[in-house]
């Protein structure tokens, strides 16, 4: 369980005059849940990349708990993400040719964090996410099942944070609702801080707080509305 602290964060890309993302300050207490919305191109994915360390901040800092990840070198940042942040993406990014179980285990296996306990946990997570046959080849799963496997993979290393970028956008409404419910429930159970980019109103409603982005800036924040 980690708290998010952003200060003076700017993300710029070469060839663009204005920053794609500009967040003077954002604080999310540990264990809380944040929904991020906004039109296409408003900078939501850029925010996800910044807080997961997939992209380096142009300026400013992003901290999870005591760790300022924008100050870490690439290798250490990758390692931090691997151990503390569980990622769920819109298009699952599962690896074909492997089974559901192997997909869940792959990141741990490749970074040699493989333990018998991790195997147990992988099987347990697949059970919780409702995958009946963990050794089924990944290509033969339904899309809803694929996203569940991705959720199980995100949770394997017991991360303090779960970040999801439009996790239900490529699923139909019913399946999407199931997956939303699963993510929120598991984040609570595991006591992880949760950041979800979504357009899904039902999903937003399950979360504590909602911010809306436009042109890379926060134009609406449910926490401030409540405070006002």
């Amino acid at each position, binding site marked *: 369980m980690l708290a998010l602290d952003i200060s003076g964060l700017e993300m710029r890309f070469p060839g663009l005059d204005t920053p794609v993302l500009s967040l003077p300050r954002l604080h999310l207490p540990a264990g809380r849940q944040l929904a991020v919305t906004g039109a296409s191109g408003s900078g939501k994915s850029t925010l996800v990349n910044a807080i997961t360390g997939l992209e380096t901040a142009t300026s400013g800092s992003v901290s999870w708990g005591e760790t300022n990840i924008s100050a870490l070198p690439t*290798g250490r940042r990758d390692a931090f*993400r*691997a*151990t503390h942040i569980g990622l769920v993406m819109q298009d699952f990014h599962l690896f074909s040719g492997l089974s559901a179980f192997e997909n869940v285990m792959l*990141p741990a296996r*490749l*970074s040699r964090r493989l333990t018998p306990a991790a195997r147990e946990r992988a099987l347990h997570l697949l059970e919780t996410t409702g995958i009946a046959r963990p050794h089924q080849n990944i290509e033969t799963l339904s899309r809803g099942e694929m996203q569940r496997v991705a959720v199980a*993979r995100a949770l394997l290393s017991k991360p303090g944070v779960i970040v999801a970028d439009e996790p239900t956008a490529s699923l139909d409404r019913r399946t999407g609702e199931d997956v939303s419910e699963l993510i929120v429930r598991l984040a609570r159970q595991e006591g992880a801080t949760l950041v979800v980019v979504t357009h899904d109103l039902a999903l937003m409603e399950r979360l504590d707080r909602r911010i809306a982005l436009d042109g890379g800036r926060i134009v609406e924040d449910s926490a401030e509305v409540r405070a006002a």
Partner: protein
Amino acid sequence: MIRFILADLNRFKAGAFAVVILIALSVALSVTVTLQERAVRLGSARAAEKFDLLVGAAGSETQLALSAEFLQPSPLPLMSGRVLAKLSVDPRVDFAAPVGFGDYADGHPVVGTTSKLIAALSPALAQGAAFASLGDAVIGADVPKRIGAEIKPMHGGAEEGGHTHTEIVYTVTGRMAPTGTAWDRAILVPIRAVWQLHGMSSYDAHDHGDETHGSVEPEGHEHKAHVSVDAAIDEHFDVETPGIPAVLVKPKTIADAYRLRQEYRGEATLAVFPAEVLTRLYATLGDARGLLLAIAIGTQIIVIAAVLLVTIMHVSARQRQIGALRAFGAPRRAVVAIVWGELFLLFLAGFAAGLVIGYGTAHLISATLTATIAIRMPVEFAREDLSLAFWFVGLAVLVSILPALSTLRLSPARALRS
């Protein structure tokens, strides 16, 4: 890791297969050239080992060596039979055996010689006995005839329009053990039978001085000689001995060999060490090998360049997958290892397949050569091949590491967007 690499290769089966085949063929080319050159060299050196010195009429050394060692039909001039008479009684000579060519039976050369040569080629016969009378014949290990079979010699190969000798029919009395030389395909008969068959009783240097007819053959074809097949063989040669194309000589010592060669190098005769002639031929062969190998290495470079291109394209096509691996917690070294491992595995597979294909091809070529000229050409790897193999593996490591390192510069965020 391995599991992931295999699953990944499985997804790109066709491409991976094509790359492996490409590498395999280029490796096979070098392997075949190297092995085949060695096989020819070793095979002919072993064939030349049997005799130390060849004496023939003045002419081409190479022709003399090739005809007498490999029994290749080529027109050899005749020399005086006195040479054989002299060599036979020379104390420095272990044995001296005449060889008379020109006749064939079913494509096998019929060579007139003495029982001493048979004893030298095959100290113990595989079957039967050496010849005792003029109508007897001893066959090489590869001649498909049974003991007791009849042999009707033809003058010249059938394809050269030769005629059959009706005067004589040889009977097979023995078979030599395999020697791995051209003699395995030969039919050995008493030299005196050959002389009689061709109507030669004695050699007259004045009449035959510049004849290069290719065989023991008197002027014209007007011989109606009679050969008494039951007559006992006579292997004592005096000054009356008819002309012969070559004498195989086994000197007693190395010093004797050099002295004899010196002595028989003159106006009328020629003496050569077959090994020496072969060495000269190998120099030419070596040049050819150098050229072929250069071509083979050239194709390898082209293949490697093509493979490099394919893999760099492959890596950029896989950006998404590689970005995802990084995003979901695989360290960069793992990603590098995966890409590198995949490529290296393809190289190794291609290399192994190339070795097998090359080895097989060399065997096939050797077998074909052996079938035609009867010289066993051993296809074998040698120590020096190791350095070639190390070169290849080293190059493979280097070439496959390049695309792998290119993944280091990949931004996972950008890779995921694409």
